[in-house]
């Protein structure tokens, strides 16, 4: 596995806070530590809140890539 190949994907465009974070949490719990989840997140509130909450729970954001009106995040499940 390379850092940039995701085991799972979640498209959270249009999903509001904090529901977007809850979706991610549920997904991350199904995955193994070290796995990578790819997430599409809206700009604005979601980009302000979700990355902070993920860091608080010990997950790692490996990459943030801007796309058309949203962002693609690679999240590595906490050890």
């Amino acid at each position: 596995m390379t850092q940039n190949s995701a085991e799972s994907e979640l498209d959270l465009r249009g999903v509001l806070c904090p529901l977007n974070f809850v979706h991610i949490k549920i997904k991350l719990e199904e995955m193994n530590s070290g796995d990578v989840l790819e997430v599409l997140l809206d700009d604005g509130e979601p980009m302000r809140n979700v990355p902070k909450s993920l860091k608080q729970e010990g997950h790692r954001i490996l990459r943030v890539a801007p796309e058309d009106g949203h962002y693609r995040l690679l999240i590595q499940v906490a050890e």
Partner: protein
Amino acid sequence: MESSQSSMEGLKAELRKESRRLKLNFDELKSGGFIKQTQKDLFTVRLRCPGGRVTADKMRTAAAIADKYGRGEVHITVRQSVEVPYVNYIHFDAVAEELRAVNWSVASCGARVRVPTACAGCSYNPNGLVDTQGICAEVDRRYFGTPTGHHKFKMSFSGCPIDCFRTREMDLGFQGMVEPKLLEDLCNGCQLCVKGCEDKALRMEGDLPVRDDSLCVGCGDCVKVCPVDAMVVARRGWLARVGGRHGKHPLFAYEVANFLTDDQVYALIETTVDWYRHHGEGRERIGAVIGRIGLNTYLDDVVRPLGVEIVAQADQRRKYWAGGNLYDSK
């Protein structure tokens, strides 16, 4: 006849005993905390709950007092106290006894330093930057009940600039703040910090975030979001505000010092209460004193001598702007 005479004597003796007992209590309870109600003979017993933190043990005592001497209910005040209403004054002694048993006492009222309030701060609130509960307990231990000679003196502690404990409305308010610093070598340019800063104090210059201190309120969100810990805390401390109040004619406090340590907070409280005692007239709150003789006098007399990081210029306060319906009395 004779028996009624002797029972009258007995009653008088009982009353004398009772009043001696009550007098003793009134002395002991002079600091206030027993507040007269609308109803004859009934008082509200305000309990001392610094930072709104009360052990389960004390809560059980409050409940027992409410059951035995009140009406089986307590009131949670806006300043985080537990009050037991509808207590007849003849029970003061018994109430004080029950409180002593759990090492508790009533709060103060009148022209004194009141019980300080505080949020949960960094102990479990994700926004918290500082230990609000710790310092609140210590400030209560040191300064609770100190007479001011003029009017009440209220203090509060907020863990971050969201300021749930309204430090702007206090005679003295302290709010946690951090100064973020970028470790350029670690930064990957992801911009999450820029997105995370509600005050637009960060912008990208090339591949690196740059901070504008004239906009940064010290909330630490950029540090909390940075996935590689490239944005770190350079300094952490208390922002001090003075001269606020609510009431019929509210005043918003002035920011007067940045990044105070706990010891500097204690020093500022002591010198500020002293200054207020000397310069206040009648029942003025400290905000009115500052309005009358000028913020600069306060800064020169109290803040400068402490050698702390002073906030002396109006521009330094602009980033803490407030809006809404701010009346002008003139």
